[in-house]
C-alpha cells in the first residue's frame, strides 16, 4: 500500500472543507479523483502534499505518517504534484524548471558550487542530461532553452508534469491536467499519462473534470462531494451510481 489517507479532515475556521476522507492507493495504480466544484479535491491534494495539515486523521506513505512534515520533506519522500493554476518558474528556461526538482539529489555542496569544481561541472552535466531525457520523452527537447512563461498553455501543463517527474516521485498528483485542452489534445494526454505510469513506475492520482479522460484511463475512481467520499469503484460502477449523478446534477424535483 503506497498511500493511505485515514479519516483526514480539515476545517478553516468554522468551514469543514474535508471530512473523514479515506483514500488508498497501491504502487503503480492510476486513480481518478472527481467531484463537483468545491467538493474539496484540490484541498485533498494540498493535504497529501503537505501544504495544509489535517486537523484530524492521518496520511501515510509506505506506512510512515506524513503528518507534521513540511511540504518539501513530503516531496522528497516521493509525493510530487502539479497545480490547477499552473505555477511554473516563469522567467526560468524549461530545462531549468525541470532541474529545480532535482535539487534535493544534488551531489555537490555549496563550496563546490562557489568554486565551480570538477565535481560540480560533472554533476551539472549529468543533471542537464537527465532533464533533456525527460524533454525527449515528451518530444519537447527543442524548447529546452525557452522561457517557460512564454510558452503556450498546453505546453506549460506538460512542463509542469516534467518538472514533477524530475523529482523521481513514487506518487504523482496531477491537478486537472486536461483543463483547457481540446479533444485531440486530451487524447494525447491520456496516452501520455499511461505511458508515464508505465515508464516511470509511478502511481498517479489525478483530479479531473473531463469524464472521457477519467473513464478512459483510470483504474479506479473516487468521488468527492462536500468534502466526503460518496462513492468509490471502477469507472463502470461510478457511471451508473445514483449518488454521483445527484452530486453533479442535483436531485430531480419530484423525487423530493
Amino acid at each position: 500500500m503506497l498511500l493511505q489517507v485515514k479519516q483526514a479532515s480539515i476545517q478553516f475556521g468554522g468551514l469543514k472543507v474535508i471530512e473523514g476522507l479515506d483514500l488508498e492507493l497501491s504502487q503503480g495504480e492510476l486513480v481518478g479523483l472527481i467531484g463537483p466544484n468545491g467538493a474539496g479535491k484540490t484541498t485533498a491534494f494540498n493535504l497529501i502534499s503537505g501544504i495544509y495539515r489535517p486537523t484530524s486523521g492521518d496520511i501515510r506513505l509506505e506506512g510512515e505518517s506524513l503528518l507534521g512534515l513540511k511540504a518539501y520533506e513530503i516531496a522528497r519522500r516521493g509525493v510530487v504534484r502539479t497545480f490547477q493554476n499552473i505555477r511554473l518558474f516563469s522567467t526560468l528556461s524549461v530545462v531549468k524548471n525541470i532541474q529545480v526538482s532535482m535539487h534535493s539529489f544534488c551531489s555537490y555542496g555549496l563550496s563546490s558550487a562557489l568554486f565551480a569544481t570538477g565535481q560540480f561541472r560533472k554533476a551539472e552535466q549529468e543533471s542537464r542530461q537527465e532533464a533533456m531525457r525527460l524533454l525527449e520523452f515528451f518530444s519537447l527537447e527543442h524548447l529546452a532553452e525557452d522561457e517557460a512563461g512564454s510558452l503556450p498553455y498546453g505546453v506549460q501543463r506538460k512542463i509542469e508534469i516534467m518538472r514533477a517527474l524530475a523529482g523521481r516521485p513514487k506518487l504523482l498528483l496531477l491537478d486537472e491536467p486536461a483543463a483547457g485542452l481540446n479533444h485531440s489534445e486530451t487524447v494525447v494526454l491520456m496516452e501520455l499519462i499511461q505511458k508515464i505510469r508505465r515508464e516511470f513506475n509511478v502511481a498517479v492520482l489525478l483530479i479531473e473534470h473531463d469524464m472521457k479522460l477519467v473513464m478512459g484511463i483510470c483504474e479506479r475512481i473516487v468521488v468527492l462531494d462536500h468534502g466526503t467520499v460518496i462513492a468509490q469503484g471502477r469507472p463502470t460502477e461510478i457511471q451508473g451510481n445514483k449518488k454521483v449523478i445527484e452530486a453533479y446534477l442535483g436531485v430531480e424535483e419530484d423525487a423530493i
Partner: protein
Amino acid sequence: MISWRGWAIVVTVALTFSGAGHLFLNAYLQQILFYIGINIILAVSLNLVNGFCGQFSLGHAGFMAIGAYVSALVSLNFTLLQGPLAFLNFPLFALLGGLGGAIAGWAVGLPSLRLRGDYLAIVTLGFGEIIRVVLLNLEVVGGARGLYGIPGDTGFVACLHIYLWAGATVLCIWQLLQSSYGRAFLSVREDEVAAECMGINTTRTKVTAFVISSFFAGVAGSLFAHTTNSLNPASFQFVKSVDVVIMVVLGGSGSVTGSVVGAILVTVLPEALRPLQAWTGVDVRMVIYSLLLILMMILRPAGLFGGRELSQLKWWRRNAPTS
C-alpha cells in the same frame, strides 16, 4: 579542481585596474577606485538576496558594519602573521570580517526569512539599525567616536586587494548562480509554494543566500575599514543600505552585470556632481538618488540590465568571441 579560467580573468582584471589606477590616477581618484571596488562587492552580494532570491533586505549596512568592526578590532589588537607572510594579513582580516558578517547574517536571517515581503524588509531594516545603535553605545568599539588609526595598505597593493575580492565576489556568486543552488534561489523568487512542492527547503535556501550575501558584505566592511583607517557608526546608517539598494535597482535586480555597473555609476555620480554641489552649496546627492529611485520604479523597474547579463545581450552575442 576548480575552474582556473575564471580566476585568471579575475587576477588579470584586478592587476590591470590597480596598475592603471596607480599609474594614471591621483590619490583622490584612486580613493574613488577603491570605493568602486567595495561597492561592487556590496551590490553583487545584496543582489543575491534581493534580486536572485526575491527577498527584500534593507539591512545590508548592518552586516557591512559588523565586518568592518570585527576586522578593525582584530587588526588593532593582534598581529596575525609576520615576516614573509605578512602580506596575507589584510586578506585574513577580510576573511574574518566576512565571517562576522556571515554569522550575523545567519542570526538575523534564520528568524526573519519566514516573513513575507514588506515585513522582511522592515525587520532587516530594524536589525540593521539595532546593530548600529549597539555599536554606537558600546564603549569597547569607541561608541560614537568610533575607532581610529586602523592599519591599512595604500596604493597599488590596497587597490589590488580590493579588486581581487571584488572579482572573487563576482566570480563565486556567478558560479553559484549557475549551480543547482542558484536554481533553488530563483525558484524561491518565482514561486515559493511551487518550489516547496518540488522538494526545495525554501527557508534553508533563503538563509543560505542571506548568509553568503552577508559574508561578502562583511568583507566589504573590512576593506572599507582598512581603506578609510577610521570607523564610525554614522557610516552605517539606513541611508547606506539604501545606497546599495539603489545600486542594485539601477543596474537591475537579477543581473550580476547590472550590479557591477550600478555600483560603478552610483559611486562615480556624486563625484561628477561635485561642481553642482559647490555651486548650490547643498548636498544634492541624496535628493537626486531618491528621485532616481522613484523614477526608476515607475519608468524602468527592471533597471539597466533587466534580468540579463552581458552575455545575454544581443549585441554581445553577435560581436563577442565565442566561448
